[in-house]
């Protein structure tokens, strides 16, 4: 199937919104793939982090929102620390997740974790879960 790349305002709005929410310039990405190369979750993802940002550049909103990648991202910031163009990919992921669930309903809260489990979980996992599933 041929994808229509519209120069129109709706595509522009999506890109602008992602840039506004993330504070990142997605056009800075030159597709070197370093984010995907170092991503610890990449093997589980249907779209690699660099593919996500590429689809954002092209304004292909639906392809991005359909992806499992958004919730597999561990927010570990390996990509951000290595990006040669200084893009914080984790923030871009976060921005896309915001667009996906604008209603702000909490899918997860700290109360859902048993105190025993909470003792063993690294703090970063708690933060990541809240980032992804709570508003």
């Amino acid at each position: 199937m041929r994808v229509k790349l519209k120069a129109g305002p709706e595509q522009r709005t999506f890109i602008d919104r992602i840039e506004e929410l993330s504070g990142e310039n997605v056009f800075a990405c030159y597709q070197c793939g370093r984010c995907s190369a170092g991503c610890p979750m990449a093997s589980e993802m249907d779209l690699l982090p660099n593919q996500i940002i590429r689809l954002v550049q092209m304004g292909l909103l639906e392809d991005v929102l359909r992806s499992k990648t958004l919730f597999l991202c561990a927010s570990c910031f390996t990509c951000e620390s290595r990006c040669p163009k200084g893009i914080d990919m984790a923030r871009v992921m976060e921005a896309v997740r915001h667009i996906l669930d604008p209603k702000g309903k909490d899918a997860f809260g700290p109360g859902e974790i048993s105190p025993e489990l909470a003792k063993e979980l690294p703090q970063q996992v708690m933060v990541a879960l809240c980032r992804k599933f709570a508003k």
Partner: protein
Amino acid sequence: MTVKTKKKEDKRIGLFVCHCGVNIAGVVDVKKVAEALKDTPGVSMSTDYVYMCSDPGQQMIIDTIKEKHLDGIIVAACSPTLHEKTFQEAARLAGLNPYQIEIANIREQNSWVHSDKDKATKKAVKIVKSHVAKAIRNENLEPIKVDVKKRALVIGGGVSGLQAALDIADHGYEVILVEKNPSIGGKMIQLSETFPTLDCSQCILTPKMVEVSRHPRIKLLTYHEVDSVSGFIGNFKVRIKKKPRFVDEKLCNLCGECEKVCPQIVPDEFNMGLSFRKAIYMPFPQAIPGTYTLDEDHCLGLSPVRCGKCKDVCEPRAIDFDMKETIIEEEVGAIVVATGYDLYTMQALGEFGGEKYEDVVNGLEFERILSASGPTGGVVRRPSDGKVPKSVVFVQCCGSRDTEKHLPYCSKICCMYTAKHAMLYRHRVPDGQATVFYIDVRTGGKAFDEFYQRTVEEDKVLYIRGKVSKVFKEGDKLIVWGVDTLTGKKVEIEADMVVLAMAMVKTDGVQDLLKKLKISTDIHGFVAEAHPKLRPVESLNAGFFLAGCAHGPKDIPEAVSQASAAAAKVGDLFAQKELSHEPTVVPVNDELCSGCGICVTMCPYGARTLDPSKGVVDVNEILCEGCGACAAACPCGAAQQRNQTDDQIFSMLRAMLRE
């Protein structure tokens, strides 16, 4: 020229075998080679050393020549293309004729290509023995001397030609600058702004144009064409055709009355046919020389009976319908070829619709659309209906890097100018979308990649990695079908305008001229350099120098650097009192020559002519580059190359095949 040489039986030859570190000694037993040759007739001493080309190595050669009274030496080392000159100079310092030096190549043709030490050593012995056979037959030679005419001809008045002319003139020599168009300026004067600094192209070029026109040592010949060139380095005779302008440039006061009354409207070349001019016209306001030119092909017939309106209104009486084409002759010592480039035709890529749709334009046309002096005054408007395009698709590599169907090479400047086009378009139309289709983005150059990154990051130009399959029309939109190989998606874009980055190609109009100059070109018709790394601004043909895109695709800074380099080379030539030419040429033995003329057709340099009165071939030794093609072809043995005679070659073969 030969001078008195000892008989071969009396010659004392010295042999110096080089280790070249382990380059040679790692495979060839160099001591064994020196030892094996010690008793060969003619060899009076032999030795080896780790680096013959080093200072101590050369000193050893010089001292040994003096001590042992050597009449010739053989250096068994690398290819003669590398160090023949070094050892010739060492010989000269020792008082030995430099043409008594033989280089036996035991590196490139032996140690580098073999691994069997024993066999390689035996081969080295054979190679050196063959050179002994040659060395005892070498004659003392002296370089051929010739005078230099210290004036240069520069062909082409684009930025390269202008720079070369200015530099040569500033070196203190006279220059004749020939431009076939009515004005100098070339392609650069048509550009809008130049990457990566976005200087206005006209603003930076016009000062150079003015400087050329006012320079006391530059004779500017616009609307002239080089008709033929004869002679040789330092002594060329040039015939230049003066095309009739039909307007006396000294009388024309640029009042423009002629243009107003001229009824003939033709496409304007300066604006790439995007606007119109009259048959009597000035190419652009800053044209130099500042004069009107009457275009003979479009004038109503140059006959006062048929039209003559321009002549009637011309107050200074500058228009003269009776002007004729004339020929002028000049003598020069060097020629700079700066004949520029053309764009590959859009016809060749029919699937992109460049021929069918007005709104599919090439890079130069888009330059004019962006230019403040262009047909739209710098407002981006599409040619078909003058609307401001809200979506522009740029397609890179149109014809370039297509080995099968089009041109195999990279046109080098398109990545940068496309980034510039997209950036300038976004500046002029802030709500417009710019999309670029590319295969690779190649932006090597000072501040080039930063410029490209700015186009993407700041001006939000969407770069799509992939080629376009076709462009077609739907309503008043152009539909572009292509692919983004990064996502694997086939894409479709609605565009108002498509800009094709057509490949840079040779200038068609000058191919005849290049043939007449007998100057060598590469397979794409660009002028060939003498050596791709070490002699990049000289032609293989002595006395010719290259500047700019005549030599191949390049950007303005590179063209200007090359022009300055070519000018410096011309300066080198003119700084000499007289020229020395290698004496290893191929003269003719009149008594043996049958006048068959085979060698004349073999000679790539035009050095040989058949003298009809004597019935034998005449050789211009200055033109002869000593390639030996004629000597190999001559059926009578009349063409013998100096120090490379048939006798010497057969002796070498005998020496090599003995055992």
